[in-house]
């Protein structure tokens, strides 16, 4: 039994959906051209007039936008509405460069919330639920985004934000939270604290599912979380530039549904910029079809994924993106070989003796890059024999070598020594000075 927030739109036949997208795209190019000096210049430079865009296929004629454009026009140079129309701002932390600012009209907030209402409904969250929002509230879009979405579907939202874990667990028990929304790494930390308190999610809380995102996590991590805690773990996706958290999987856990009446997605070859067909892995590019304050045309999000346009078993016809495999900018190159932290995670979590926490340390000794993978030894399997521990190191090293085609030094570390994160986990430490 699947519930829909808006069955007419969510189950709209694909060709009708494409017509809706086409109409909105044509309107959008006129809208941005007429409301933003940035887009006008960009189109003129590319020799494109809004009148050239008449079909979905024409989208490939439009130039890309990037995070760098948002930085270059900081704070509001890409906005298409006067400031008095803006009802809210969010901003990125700027940890990887100059911060970026996003703005929302009232309608933008509504559309964002509708997107999440559809998503949360698709994983069975409704009036009966208590949603504990463990994403940060504030300039980060995670907390407020989930909060509004949960309220719209009639659930009770608990704005715990991140941190203060024991208090979170107490509230979870006292208020009967059925859903936890946070980063997967924070949930792992929460699980550790739950264990330490001598309780478990299954018997001592009402928790039935988690809405996990804001950092890449693997299918293996999902299986572990589900097995260890007995809850369903769902993937949520979105990024502040396109509003915030927007999309989730449905209960079939077979790809994240992207609402095609609001967003148009493509996957491109990150090097050539050429659009790739369905099923091919590449960089995700998003065009916002209904945003007013900060519409983005062919925005290169940087996440690597695969599009699946087949209607889902749940009945929804909108395209899905398969699990985010990493980002073009979190790919690390070690001795000329591309490594994604997600690949390493997938390998590690197939080895039962290894805990969920890990860190990659890249260094350079002389001319040679070194990759060290630190993993925590779980208490349950600690053998007092050195030979067993050495065997474990070798086993991890061999599995990594098979998948990465790269030798990594494996270091066993004590549980709890890899820093726990309240937000996005820092999986990679690059000490190379290049």
């Amino acid at each position: 039994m699947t519930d829909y927030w808006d069955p007419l739109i969510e189950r709209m036949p694909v060709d009708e959906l494409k017509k809706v997208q086409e109409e909105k795209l044509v309107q959008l190019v006129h809208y941005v051209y007429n409301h933003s000096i940035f887009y006008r210049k960009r189109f003129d430079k590319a020799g494109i007039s809004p009148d050239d865009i008449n079909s979905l296929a024409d989208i490939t004629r439009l130039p890309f936008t990037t995070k760098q454009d948002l930085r270059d026009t900081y704070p509001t140079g890409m906005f298409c509405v006067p400031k008095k129309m803006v009802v809210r701002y969010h901003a990125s932390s700027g940890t990887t460069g100059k911060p970026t600012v996003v703005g929302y009209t009232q309608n933008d907030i509504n559309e964002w919330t509708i997107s999440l209402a559809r998503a949360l409904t698709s994983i069975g969250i409704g009036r009966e639920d208590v949603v504990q929002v463990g994403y940060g509230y504030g300039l980060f879009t995670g907390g407020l985004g989930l909060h509004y979405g949960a309220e719209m579907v009639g659930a009770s939202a608990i704005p715990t934000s991140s941190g203060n874990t024991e208090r979170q667990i107490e509230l979870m028990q006292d208020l009967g939270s059925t859903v936890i929304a946070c980063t997967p790494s924070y949930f792992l930390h929460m699980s550790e604290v739950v264990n330490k308190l001598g309780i478990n999610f299954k018997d001592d809380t009402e928790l039935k599912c988690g809405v996990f995102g804001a950092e890449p996590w693997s299918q293996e991590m999902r299986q572990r979380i589900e097995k260890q805690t007995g809850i369903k773990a769902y993937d949520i996706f979105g990024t502040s530039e396109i509003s915030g958290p927007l999309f989730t999987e449905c209960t079939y856990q077979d790809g994240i549904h992207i609402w095609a009446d609001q967003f148009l997605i493509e996957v491109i070859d990150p090097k050539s910029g050429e659009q790739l067909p369905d099923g091919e892995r590449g960089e995700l590019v998003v065009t916002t079809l209904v945003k007013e304050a900060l519409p983005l045309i062919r925005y290169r999000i940087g996440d690597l994924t695969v599009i699946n346009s087949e209607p889902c078993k749940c009945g929804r016809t909108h395209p899905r993106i398969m699990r985010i495999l990493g980002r073009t900018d979190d790919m690390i190159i070690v001795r000329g070989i591309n490594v994604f932290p997600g690949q390493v995670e997938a390998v590690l979590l197939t080895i039962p003796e290894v805990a969920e926490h890990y860190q990659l340390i890249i260094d350079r000794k002389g001319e040679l890059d070194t990759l060290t993978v630190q993993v925590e030894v779980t208490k349950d399997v600690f053998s007092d024999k050195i030979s067993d521990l050495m065997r474990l190191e070798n086993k991890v090293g061999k599995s990594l070598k098979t998948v990465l085609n790269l030798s990594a030094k494996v270091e066993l570390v004590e549980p709890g020594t890899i820093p726990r994160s309240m937000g996005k986990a820092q999986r990679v430490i690059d000490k190379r000075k290049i």
Partner: protein
Amino acid sequence: MENKMIKQISVFAENKPARLERMTEILKLANINIRAFTIAEAGDFGVLRMVVDKPDTAHRQLNEAGFTVSETDVLGVEMSDSPGALHEIAHILGSNNINVDYAYAFVTATQKALLIIRVDNINNAITVLGNAGVVLIDMKEVEMI
């Protein structure tokens, strides 16, 4: 058989400064007396092994402090403090095809020597050592060393 075994506490530790300090502080605060102690190192990590007077308390306290700790059954073999004593024990085990995983020894206050061993077949070792008239100490005796 049980009372012929002693409980050894093993702790996983990264090979870096202050790990031993931290661990011994916990034992000190719990008023645990260490009877025998050794560190085996393997590159970036090591295993600390010890025989203490209150193994269960030590285990619990270290565990609560976040250490990876386990209890292992080992044998405390009493030897005379004289040349050839270790060879005698090694001969009994060797000729009965019992493998020693690791061992460490110390001299006690009672003019005896004590050998702590972990073997691949502990029950077998208890039998063959017993048959040869070798004394194995139990936990009560550990407390009194």
